[in-house]
C-alpha cells in the first residue's frame, strides 16, 4: 500500500470545492439542485472506486523509500530515524477507511437528496455545510497527521454549528452557542495535547510518533506524554459527545432538521472512530488508557440510554439513544483485542446507518405534523404506513434484533467481552439493548399506534418518494451487513490488527 493515488485527495477536494461554490448560489435553486445531486453521487462513488494507497501532501515519501532525495544527504540524516519519518502530511486509504468513508458518503447522499426534495427552494448554504462537514470527517478518517486531524476537527465542529443554525428549530441559536463555548475549551485542550506530543516526539505524524515511542526514542512513561494523552482524550470526549458532553451533543441533534441530525450523528460516530483509533495507536501500551475508554463507554451507554427513557421529545429521545449506542463502539475499543476492536468498528458503521435511518424516519412525522412532542402525537400509522414500517424495522435494528446488522456487531461485542474475561460488561450490554428496545417501542407506540389526539393537525402533503427510497436503501445496507457481516468485518479487521 505504498502507491500514491489521485482519488484520495479528490475525496476531500471535490466536496470542499463544490461546497464553496454552492455557498454562492443560495438563490439559484435549480443550479444548486444539479450540482448537489452530482456531488452527492460522487461522495460514496469515489471511495468505492479508489484503490488503497498513501498520499503525501506538501512533502514526499520517507527518505528510505525515496533514493533520489536521500542521495547526497549527510549520514546523520539518512542513518537516523529521520530516514523513515514522513516529511509530509500523509493520508492513508486502507480497507477500513474505504468502508467507513463509503458509508459516510451514503448517509450524506441520502441526507442531501431528501433535503433537496423536501423543500421547494433548496438552500445552497445547507448543502454547503453538509459537504464541508463530510469532507472534514473524511479527512479525519484518512489523515495520519494529528495536527491535520485537529484542523478538520475544528472545521467539522463549525459546520455542525452551521447545520444547527440554518435548521430554524426553536432555541437552535442558544444550543449552537453553548456547543461553541464548550468546544472552545475542549479544542484548545486537544491542541495543547498535540503540542505536548510534538514537544516530546518532535513529530505530528502518528506513525512516526508511534515509532518513536515503541523504539524508545522517547520515554513512553514520560509525564508530559501522559499529560498529552489525557488532553487528547478530553478533546475526543467532546468531539464524540461522550460524557460529560453527551447532553450538549444530544441537544445539537435535536435542534437540527432530521437530515441534519442524520449527518451530525454520522460525523460524531466517525470522529469517535478517527480520534479513538489514534488514541489506541499511540497509547495502547498504557493499560489504563484501555480501562478508561471501557469505563467512559459504559457510562455513555448507561447515561445515554437511561436519559432516553425520560425524554418527551422524540428527536431528543433518538439523540440520547445515539449517544448510548456510541458507548458500544467504545467498549469494543476498550477491550483492546483484535476481535473487540473489529466489533467496535463494525458497530460504528452500523450505528451510522441505523441512527440516520431513525432520524430520517421520525423526520417524516415532523414533515406531516411539525410536531416533536410525544404527548401531542398519535395515530400516525394510518397517515404514514410505509415509513412507520421502516421506522419499526430501524428500531429493531438499533436494539440488536436479528437479522439486522447491529445484532451481528453487538453479538461480536458480547463474545469479545466474554473472551476478555469481562462477563459483567456483556451482561450490561445485553440489558441496555433490552432497555433500548423498550424505549424505542414506547415512542413507536405513542406516535403510531395509540389514537390520534384531538388537537393534532396533519398536513395533506405526501411524504416525498425520495425519503422512502432513502430509508429502504439504508435498511438494505442494514440487512446486507446483518446477513453477511464478513462483508464489513473483512474490511475492518486489518485496521484492528494494526492497533490491537
Amino acid at each position, binding site marked *: 500500500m505504498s502507491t500514491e493515488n489521485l482519488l484520495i485527495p479528490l475525496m476531500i477536494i471535490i466536496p470542499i470545492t463544490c461546497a464553496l461554490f454552492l455557498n454562492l448560489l443560495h438563490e439559484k435553486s435549480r443550479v444548486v439542485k444539479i450540482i448537489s445531486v452530482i456531488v452527492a453521487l460522487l461522495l460514496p462513488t469515489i471511495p468505492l472506486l479508489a484503490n488503497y494507497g498513501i498520499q503525501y501532501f506538501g512533502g514526499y515519501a520517507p527518505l528510505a523509500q525515496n533514493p533520489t532525495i536521500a542521495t547526497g544527504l*549527510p549520514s546523520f540524516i539518512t542513518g537516523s530515524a529521520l530516514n523513515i519519518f514522513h516529511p509530509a502530511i500523509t493520508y492513508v486509504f486502507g480497507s477500513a477507511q474505504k468502508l467507513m468513508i463509503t458509508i459516510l458518503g451514503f448517509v450524506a447522499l441520502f441526507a442531501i437528496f431528501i433535503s433537496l426534495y423536501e423543500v421547494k427552494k433548496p438552500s445552497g448554504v445547507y448543502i454547503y455545510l453538509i459537504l464541508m462537514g463530510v469532507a472534514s470527517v473524511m479527512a479525519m478518517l484518512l489523515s495520519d497527521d494529528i495536527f491535520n486531524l485537529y484542523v478538520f476537527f*475544528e472545521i467539522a465542529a463549525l459546520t455542525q454549528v452551521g447545520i444547527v443554525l440554518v435548521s430554524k428549530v426553536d432555541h437552535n441559536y442558544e444550543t449552537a452557542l453553548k456547543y461553541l463555548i464548550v468546544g472552545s475549551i475542549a479544542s484548545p485542550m486537544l491542541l495543547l495535547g498535540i503540542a505536548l506530543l510534538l514537544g516530546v516526539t518532535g513529530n505530528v505524524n502518528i506513525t512516526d510518533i508511534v515509532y518513536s515511542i515503541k523504539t524508545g526514542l522517547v520515554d513512553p512513561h514520560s509525564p508530559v506524554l501522559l499529560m498529552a494523552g489525557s488532553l487528547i482524550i478530553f478533546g475526543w470526549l467532546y468531539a464524540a459527545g461522550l460524557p460529560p458532553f453527551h447532553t450538549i451533543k444530544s*441537544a445539537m441533534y435535536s435542534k437540527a432538521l432530521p437530515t441534519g441530525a442524520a449527518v451530525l450523528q454520522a460525523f460524531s460516530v466517525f470522529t469517535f472512530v478517527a480520534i479513538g483509533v489514534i488514541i489506541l495507536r499511540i497509547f495502547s501500551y498504557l493499560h489504563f488508557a484501555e480501562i478508561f475508554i471501557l469505563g467512559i463507554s459504559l457510562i455513555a451507554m448507561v447515561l445515554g440510554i437511561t436519559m432516553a427513557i425520560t425524554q418527551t421529545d422524540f428527536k431528543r429521545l433518538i439523540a440520547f439513544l445515539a449517544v448510548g449506542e456510541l458507548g458500544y463502539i467504545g467498549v469494543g475499543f476498550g477491550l483492546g483485542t483484535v476481535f473487540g476492536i473489529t466489533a467496535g468498528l463494525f458497530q460504528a458503521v452500523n450505528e451510522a446507518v441505523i441512527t440516520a435511518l431513525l432520524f430520517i424516519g421520525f423526520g417524516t412525522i415532523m414533515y406531516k405534523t411539525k410536531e416533536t412532542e410525544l404527548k401531542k402525537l398519535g395515530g400516525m400509522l394510518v397517515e404514514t404506513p410505509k415509513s412507520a414500517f421502516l421506522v419499526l424495522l430501524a428500531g429493531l435494528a438499533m436494539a440488536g434484533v436479528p437479522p439486522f446488522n447491529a445484532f451481528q456487531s453487538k453479538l461480536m461485542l458480547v463474545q469479545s467481552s466474554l473472551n476478555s474475561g469481562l462477563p459483567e460488561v456483556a451482561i450490561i450490554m445485553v440489558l441496555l439493548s433490552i432497555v433500548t428496545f423498550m424505549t424505542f417501542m414506547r415512542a413507536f407506540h405513542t406516535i403510531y399506534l395509540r389514537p390520534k389526539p384531538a388537537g393534532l393537525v396533519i398536513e395533506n402533503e405526501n411524504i416525498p418518494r425520495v425519503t422512502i427510497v432513502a430509508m429502504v436503501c439504508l435498511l438494505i445496507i442494514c440487512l446486507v451487513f446483518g446477513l453477511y457481516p464478513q462483508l464489513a468485518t473483512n474490511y475492518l479487521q486489518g485496521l484492528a490488527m494494526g492497533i490491537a
Partner: protein
Amino acid sequence: MIMDTQLASLLTAGALIVIGIFGTLFLDNLIKKVISLAFIGDGVNLFLIAMGYKAGGIVYIFLPGMSMSEFSQNAAYPLPFALVLTSIVIGASTMAVMLGLIIVLNKKYGSLSASKILGDN
C-alpha cells in the same frame, strides 16, 4: 537568560490558560466569556511558540553560501510556528461565529447574561 525567555513564555501561557478557564466557567457576561476563551486559545498558541523557540536560532531557509551543518545546527524548528498560524485562523473563525451569535441573542433577550440566555435551553 535564554532559558528564562522560554520559561517565562511557558509560565505566561499557563497563566493565560488558567485565567481563561476561570473566566469561562465563572463569568456570566457572554462577551467576557468569549474574551476568556480567547485567553485559552492564546495561551495554547504561546505555549506552541515557546516550545519552538531556539536561542540564537536562524530562520528555516537554506540560504546560498550556508553549509549543511551550520543550517542543521542553528535552524529553528518551523513546525510549531506553522501550527500556530493555522490555530490563529481557526480561533478567529470560531470567535467570529460566537460573536455573531451573541449579537443575535442579545437582540432577542436584551441581555448578555449567559445564565439568562443559555440557562434554560
